[in-house]
């Protein structure tokens, strides 16, 4: 490997200050950093440093997303063959799923990568590894049937408007992946809602196949016969099915199990804030339990228990992977409790009170992204006040 390292180093002067390709330095830095952890020595400040860097941090988050991604591939294939009513081998399922999901991922990755590199070159900063996560998140929160050109538009919007116009990573207000999804949701509502977008259908659909998502089922208050849980079960949506994720939905959002696996990785490695995740679920639990008390009849959407909310739609995915985005969430530990709690409350509120927007989680997080600086502001003010108090003694 030493020879490869020396070989790369030979090109260094070409890209560094004064070199012919100085402008492309971010690309060189990315490639060099991809291949090697450089033996760069500390110059000022602490002589020893932690082995962590942004690359490692982001890779860890990436790894946490892999279970949901792999399951997403499986489920896209599984739902396809289920709607056709054909039973096939697992290999065929995965092959079909991969044909659906991998192109979506590659399109997002390439689109996002181009923007990131462009901005890095023009702004003369290093390429931030954050785009790896954004471009991994976007495919997981879109329906498998998403038209590719819309995907390119949404990724561009998410990265440019959601992140770069604020000055790049660390300065954005909103989670760029969610901005991309919100863009899709409002610009191309037909591709993002209704019953037909969540499954890649074949030539025919068997009668037994339910294409409506659980969130659509519960919004449809006409259905009656027992309670709302029975209404869901009628359509095949048992708690267990939804927990496992073998239901139609956005590519990576369906399986709560896989998301929990990701959460385990995030918390074990300290790469996500447990404060946020915990308080999102607490907020969601509190709000849905409160609504339960006001349910006019057992089939009403208000009657849905909290644990059903948690396994439906994007609640779990949003709590674990979106709300915890270190940039757009609160920057104070105390603020995180409030931030998470309100996301949980709002997500359930939007979901239940406004069936026109079944995906309350996305809107709740985006809204709280807007408010997180305000929450931080109060925490910071409290910190200052406390100091003023003893300073004036």
């Amino acid at each position, binding site marked *: *490997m030493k020879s490869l*390292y020396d070989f790369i180093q030979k090109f260094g002067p070409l890209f560094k200050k004064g070199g012919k390709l100085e402008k492309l330095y971010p690309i060189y*830095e990315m490639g060099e*950093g*991809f*291949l*090697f*952890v*450089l*033996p*760069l*020595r*500390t110059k*000022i*400040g*602490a*002589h*020893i*440093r*932690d*082995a*962590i*860097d*942004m*690359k*490692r*941090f982001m*890779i*860890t988050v990436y790894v946490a997303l892999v279970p949901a991604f792999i399951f997403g591939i499986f489920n896209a294939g599984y739902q396809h063959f289920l709607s056709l009513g054909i039973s096939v081998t697992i290999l065929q399922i995965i092959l079909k799923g991969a044909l659906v999901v991998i192109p979506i991922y590659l399109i997002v990755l390439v689109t996002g990568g181009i923007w990131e590199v462009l901005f890095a070159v023009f702004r003369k*900063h*290093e390429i*931030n*590894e*954050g785009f790896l996560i954004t471009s991994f998140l976007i495919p997981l929160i879109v329906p498998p049937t998403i038209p590719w050109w819309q995907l390119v538009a949404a990724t561009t919007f998410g990265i440019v408007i959601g992140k770069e116009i604020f000055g*790049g*990573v*660390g*300065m954005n207000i909103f989670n760029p992946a969610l901005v991309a999804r919100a863009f899709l949701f409002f610009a191309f509502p037909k591709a993002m809602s209704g019953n037909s977008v969540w499954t890649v259908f074949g030539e025919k659909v068997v009668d037994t196949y339910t294409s409506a998502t659980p969130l659509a089922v519960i919004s449809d208050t006409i259905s009656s016969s027992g309670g709302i849980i029975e209404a869901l079960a009628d359509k095949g949506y048992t708690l267990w099915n939804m927990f496992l994720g073998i239901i139609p939905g956005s590519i990576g959002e369906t399986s709560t199990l896989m998301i929990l696996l990701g959460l385990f990785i995030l918390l*074990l*490695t*300290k*790469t996500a*804030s447990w404060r946020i995740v915990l308080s999102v679920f607490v907020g969601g639990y509190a709000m849905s339990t409160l609504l339960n008390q006001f349910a006019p009849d057992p089939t009403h959407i208000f009657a849905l228990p909290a644990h059903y909310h948690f396994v439906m739609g994007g609640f779990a995915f949003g709590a674990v992977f979106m709300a915890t985005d*270190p*940039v757009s969430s*609160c*920057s*104070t*530990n105390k603020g*995180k409790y409030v931030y998470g709690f309100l996301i949980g409350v709002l997500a359930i509120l939007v979901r239940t009170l406004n069936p026109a927007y079944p995906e309350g989680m996305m809107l709740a997080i985006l809204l709280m992204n807007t408010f997180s600086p305000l929450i931080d502001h109060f*925490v*910071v003010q409290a*910190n*200052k006040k*406390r*100091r*003023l108090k*003893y*300073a*004036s003694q």
Partner: protein
Amino acid sequence: MKVIKLHRGYDIKLTGETVRTIEQAQFPPKIAFKPTDFIGLKPRLLIVTGDEVKVGTPLAYDKNNDRIKIISHVSGKVSEIIRGERRVIEAIVVETNGIQTGEHLNFDLKNLNKESVIKALLDSGLFLNFVQRPFNKIANPADTPRDIFISAMDTAPLAAEDSFILKSNENSFQKGIDVLTQLTSGKVRLSFKYEDKAFTEFNNCELYNFTGPHPAGNVGVQIHHIAPIKNANDIVWSCSVQAVILIGKLFETGKINQDILVKVAGTAAEKRYYFKTKTGAEVSSFLGKNEENSRIISGNVLTGQKIEADGFIGFKDNLITVIPEATEPEFLGWLNPGFSKRSWWKTFVSAIITPKKVFKADTNIGGGNRSLVINSIYEEVVPMRILPSYLIKSILAEDIEEMEALGIYEVAEEDFALCEYICPSKTEFQQIIRQGLNLMEKEG
């Protein structure tokens, strides 16, 4: 005795610990006085190269305050004045002659009062041991500090043990404390580790116990929890255990005595003992042959100064750490599960399966510089009611009022060394804090 329990912080566990034995180092052939050891001191030379100096000869004074002088504690000849960029004086080197002849100094040791104590400390050069907060700089002899704080628990990696330094110097230490009480309108406040019994018996001072990981031993953290600094005019001083002993000795004997104990640690050091030597000694007089390609640090790995093999130990330092420099690139390092990575984070396998493992330190920075992204983690290693990322950002924005409100008076560079250590964006926290303190002092 008040017990203060701190939870936030982090102990970096490093190999290269020292054997707890004392070796007598040779009389240092050269001793350097580095004005850069004293933040805020602008030196004006009183000697030129070639001058003979004695114990007690002033070598330089502070342009801002001519009562503050750098005093030689050896006799010999000024062999060199080392200048750095823009001719800043980096070191005044004295070649010792082995014989210690003194200037005729008359210290008034009988009447302990503020004036006599300050005069004795200034004339002996020991005054330079005091560090003032706010601003973490040299103290001003005209001030009467609200309190004087002594931390007898250095929690930094591989730090010298204060109880070991204290051993058989207890009387001098008590004498030193008695002297210090003359300088403050308040109290002398001594903090030490909960389990450390060496410091429990001292009088004339308030005793505090601290528990918790680094930086619980930082005097700034202790001040924050005992009696926080209120504003720019709320002045407190601090000094080390070694300095209190030296002050005590001065008042016991009437002689300038800068014999100190220096710990040598770090995997790249050949002889890892405590050495008896003198303040400012040339490190080659007691360091053995170090490994090739190693870095010598006067002080600890977080806050110390890099020195060369022919360099000198810092005025206030009791520790020389020698660690290997980073040399080898690591292929596809980000893919490495990391079975032997030293990290506060848990993204490496070693941090999860062997959290107690002791690691070899090298100077690898570990990654590229990035924007500050993960803002809330720094709170986890600063056991004060300070919001590190907000303070840092207010400094970068040069927002004086905000810096003041967020507590800049209470902090020093060293209190943020761990933030710098754990930062995945490799932000230079200590340097930013220094900028903030300088700006605050100038504009505030």
